[in-house]
């Protein structure tokens, strides 16, 4: 367990990694088992950005498992951030990108350090490395070992996978290792970075998964209206009806509704038209 802004020394990072079981083995687990890899108080890096390739099913399961005090980080948060904070699972979310000279952002981020460039003498701002305890990343496909292929926008997910001390993948499809080996160009995360693999079709719903489905805006608009209208009550109602009470992820998908899922899938695949 590491506070978000404490930089882990290289030796410690190597030792953490040496203790991991990095062997080639099948890592397929259930959503419930995957969530159990995330301990209360852990620092959690979340893949994707805004409404794209958000590991929603896994976040949904963390809420169901009533995790506590997760310290999260992501490029840009969206409804995933609402749910993490609103459910009480997370009490701290760090979001996106550095700030340079002159802004007040730098003044708020005391962990950043200014140095003079040893080569040119120019002023440089150094931002501390972020090595989350665990990264949650949703991908289009991977094999049972965790060799993961990402289509389209990759955001910061590759760096996140390398930086984290553990990686949990959710994937639209588990494919054979043979299929992975037929297009190694498309592999973005190697298996030895990965600790668990969960196959969850529509695992980014109601957000999008590049080339598979676009965001499910009807569901999102209803959600936003409900939560903006009554931030506390609306969120509680959403969590009760869409998260806690349900049997499984497919039941959540059935609440989004087959019409919207089919329409989002058709739009998702249309990126490959022309």
């Amino acid at each position, binding site marked *: 367990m590491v506070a978000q802004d404490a930089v882990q020394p290289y030796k410690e990072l190597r030792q953490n990694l040496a203790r991991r079981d990095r062997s080639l083995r099948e890592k397929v687990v259930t959503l419930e088992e995957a969530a159990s890899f995330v301990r209360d108080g852990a620092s959690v890096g979340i893949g994707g950005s805004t409404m794209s390739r958000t590991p929603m099913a896994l976040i949904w399961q963390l809420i169901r498992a009533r995790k506590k005090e997760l310290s999260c980080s992501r490029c840009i948060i969206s409804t995933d951030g609402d749910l993490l904070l609103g459910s009480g699972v997370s009490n701290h979310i760090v979001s996106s990108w550095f700030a340079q000279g002159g802004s*007040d952002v730098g003044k708020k981020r005391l962990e950043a350090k200014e140095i003079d460039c040893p080569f040119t003498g120019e002023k440089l701002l150094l931002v501390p490395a972020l090595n989350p305890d665990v990264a949650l990343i949703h991908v289009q496909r991977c094999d049972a070992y965790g060799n993961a292929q990402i289509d389209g926008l990759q955001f910061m997910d590759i760096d996140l996978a390398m930086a984290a001390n553990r990686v949990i993948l959710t994937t639209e499809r588990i494919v054979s290792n043979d299929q992975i080996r037929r297009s190694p160009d498309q592999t973005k995360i190697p298996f030895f970075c990965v600790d668990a693999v969960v196959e969850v079709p529509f695992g980014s719903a109601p957000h999008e998964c590049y080339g598979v489905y676009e965001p499910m805006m009807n569901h999102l608009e209803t959600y936003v209206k409900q939560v903006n209208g009554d931030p506390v009550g609306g969120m509680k109602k959403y969590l009760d009806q869409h998260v806690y009470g349900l049997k499984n992820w497919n039941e959540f998908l059935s609440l989004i509704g087959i019409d919207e899922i089919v329409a989002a899938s058709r739009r998702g695949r249309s990126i490959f038209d022309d």
Partner: protein
Amino acid sequence: MTDTTRHTASEMLAILSARQLKEGQVVFAGVGVPLLAATLAQRLRCPGLTILFEGGVIGAFVEPGKLPPSTNDQRCTKRANMVLGSAEVLLLLQRGYVDIGFMGGAQIDKYGNLNSSFIGDSDNPKTRLPGTGGGNDISSLTNMIVAMKHEKRRFVEHVDFITSPGFIRGGKSRAESGLPEGGMFRVITELAVFSFDETSRLMKVLALNPGITRDQVQDNTGFDLIFDDQLGVTEPPTEHELTTLRMLDPDRLFIAG
């Protein structure tokens, strides 16, 4: 026939902003009006405009009626020239490949500093705004166009919090703060088009929008404005501009208000 005298403030912002872009430029655009205006410029006059998005897109060519809800959605990549990582696309700003940064703003001050973080005291804010996203990088490293609604509470003497730096405290303070390149180039509102004085770096009215007076602009601004010696009047939106804009955003996602 489109009635060119009837249009929303957002339509005015999009059209006037689009006119600021030049054929062949490389533009890093934020979501909403900037994305729409850059796409409009591409369709009207600048087929060779290269649009970049923070999600990791170079050379976007967004489809009419399929405007992306953020600059991190797959729609941003449709018929793009290149898809790459977020850190990599931001590095292009750092390297100097981007001519123009283009985004919206919630609050701006007389030196062009933008606030998208907090209204009130940052330790105990009255209102929390959406935060920086790629905005700080864009404004730190490029020449900026900002398109925003003109209200007194948005045009203030000093922003409550500098999220995205303009000319900081004016004069040479931007370079002295460690930002040797870039700065505010234009601010576009439904009332006027602004630039910044070369020396003092104070916001300056370049041109009034059709039917808008100096007093109207000053009355809606929370600091004393300078007016350019050759103060102009912008051309009103043409029918072609309006119809093209409305064709791009038929659901009026970004041009309704």
